[in-house]
């Protein structure tokens, strides 16, 4: 057997509910962490770090945030980029105007500010359900875009509207090199993901899923629906806010309000649709997919057509491809890549026997 679970039984109720219950799964996670924290810094070049791994991790975090809200709690949102912006600008202004605040705390405050924005955006969600939440979250997105564009105070009254982040210093050490930025991003993402993994097996996660599946029934059994929804908005936006701070600080370095436009909200929504809604792993798969496919396409393009391919054409085909993938996934596999992976894994579990 490739994958034997024999003898790995749980005798404790809680143990049986663990996400990585099997020894094999725990080893896999350990391997991934070792690769991420040890092997990558040893072997990866700057391009991989700055152009691929850092944005991958951050978008996965943002996707995770949106997944908590939309995948677990069933509240559709197209405002994630707006919440990212709140996180980024808050962190920037905290570091700018409050001397001595450590970088990580600034990120956390960015998350908190985004959480507050999220709660405000989620307030209408008691009366407004399902698809109509697109309207409220879209309103939040546009309003946030407007605030940061209109009020130059947030950009330190910079004439061009661009802000440049200060040098990154974490725990006394300089983190502004590609490797430093990578490790900082990775640590934050891993830490927040570890917390998020507690959600599906907890009462918090169950309440969200109950509200998602049938909120009238949830209310009847005693779940406080509005509070549950607002908590989802808060926690989800916190994650998006921290992701936004990371995006601005460790990836972009310089940003203006256009980094947080509606198209980015759609990008994050696509990440979770393709990756798998309601799956934490799915956010990572979707993010990897979203980043690697365009690269693969331009390599394939230049291999097929020889020479470099027009960037604009790539953008077009990328649009068409992603649109097709969204529709295809929604039709065939709403669980996204995560479900596909799970099915493959289930087959591996009973290999060499065939499917059920």
């Amino acid at each position, binding site marked *: 057997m490739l994958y034997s679970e024999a003898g790995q039984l749980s005798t404790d*109720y809680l143990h049986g509910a663990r996400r990585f219950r099997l020894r094999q799964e725990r080893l896999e996670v350990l391997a991934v962490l070792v690769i991420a924290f040890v092997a990558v810094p040893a072997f990866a070049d700057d391009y991989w770090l700055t152009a691929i791994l850092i944005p991958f991790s951050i978008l996965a975090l943002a996707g995770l945030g949106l997944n908590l809200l939309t995948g677990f709690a069933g509240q559709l949102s197209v405002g994630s980029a707006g919440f990212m912006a709140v996180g980024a600008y808050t962190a920037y202004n905290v570091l700018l105007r409050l001397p001595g605040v450590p970088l990580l705390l600034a990120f956390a405050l960015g998350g908190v500010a985004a959480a507050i924005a999220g709660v405000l955006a989620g307030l209408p969600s008691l009366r407004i359900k399902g698809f109509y939440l697109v309207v409220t979250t879209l309103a939040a997105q546009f309003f946030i875009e407007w605030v940061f564009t209109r009020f130059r105070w947030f950009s330190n009254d910079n004439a061009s509207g661009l802000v440049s982040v200060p040098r990154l210093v974490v725990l006394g050490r300089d983190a502004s090199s590609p490797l430093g930025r990578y490790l900082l991003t990775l640590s934050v993402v891993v830490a927040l993901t570890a*917390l998020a993994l507690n959600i599906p097996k907890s*009462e*918090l996660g169950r*309440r969200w899923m109950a509200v998602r599946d049938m909120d009238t029934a949830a*209310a*009847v*059994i*005693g*779940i406080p629906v509005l509070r549950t929804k607002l908590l989802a908005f808060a926690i989800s936006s916190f994650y998006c806010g921290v992701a936004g701070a990371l995006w601005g600080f460790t990836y972009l370095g310089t940003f203006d309000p256009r980094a947080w436009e509606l198209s980015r909200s759609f990008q994050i929504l696509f990440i979770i649709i393709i990756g798998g809604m309601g799956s934490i792993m799915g956010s990572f798969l979707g993010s990897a997919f979203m980043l690697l496919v365009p690269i693969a396409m331009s390599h394939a393009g230049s291999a097929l057509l020889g020479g470099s391919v027009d960037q604009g054409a790539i953008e077009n085909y990328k649009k068409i491809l992603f649109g097709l993938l969204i529709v295809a996934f929604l039709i065939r596999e709403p669980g996204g890549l995560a479900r596909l992976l799970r099915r493959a894994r289930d087959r591996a579990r009973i290999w060499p026997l065939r499917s059920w």
Partner: protein
Amino acid sequence: MSTPSASASAAPQGAHPPLLELQGIRLAFKAVRAVEDVSFKVRRHEICAVIGPNGAGKSSILNIVSGVYRPDAGSVAFDGERRSHMLPRQTAQQGIARTFQNIAVFKGMSVLENLLTGTTLRFESSWLEQLLWLGRAKGAERREREHAERVLEFLELQPYRDAPVGRLAYGLQKRVELGRALAAAPQLLLLDEPMAGMNASEKQSMSEAILDVNRQLGTTIVLIEHDMRVVMDISDHVVVLDHGRVVGDGTPDEVRQNPDVLRAYLGSRRQAAQTQSQSAASDITDPPDASAILAASAPAASAASAAPAPSPASIAAST
């Protein structure tokens, strides 16, 4: 069903006040009068069946007791406290749990997770503790999981423990819904057509489960049901509604022989056809949703087809 007629149940008489008492309940949806001056009592530890033709107002009564609908007039007294309206959450806090006519399980979660949601009011840890997975959260989770596993065992759902409920057969989904209600350890259990859409063996299992809940856990049960055999078999107390009014209230035997009840169900042969089309038109408990009409009329068809032809005496003999 070989269980003895349930009129010899252990419900004590007189000394204790009724667990549930409806007085003068009235409810109308725009021009349609769903419930018109309904009053009855439910004693502790009894199984009370609410029966009646389609459109009689049975689901509305259940919805009123569980706080989903607000009555236009009248009051509900539960465990001594009288009130005209409570929010669904408050009724749950008081110890009332229910199932729904069109199953309301959480299809995206597993069976165990569904049962666990029933424990939500008892859960003793905050979201932050759960997010950080602190000791208090772990303890509460362990306790409630243990409780949910016991319900799982009681209802013999162990084989389906981790299965996503949406994938299960209809009868199993109903049992999961019952389990979720049980997980809340309620004083009063409201079951809205628990046997609807089930085949004979599923009905047997469900009846046994309901009796077990009543006998072993002492839970008071109010159920809406169309299958007369089940009703006569397991209930201690039957309330008959027709067009929103109570036309019969007593033990199964008493109700069986009540002329008003017979008229409501059977009518004269001329009236039978008229009543059927009338109750279809004033069918306010069912939505203008074809699938629900189809689902609801199936059991009703069996009751209606069982009722018209035989005489009262033969109904008594067949049970």
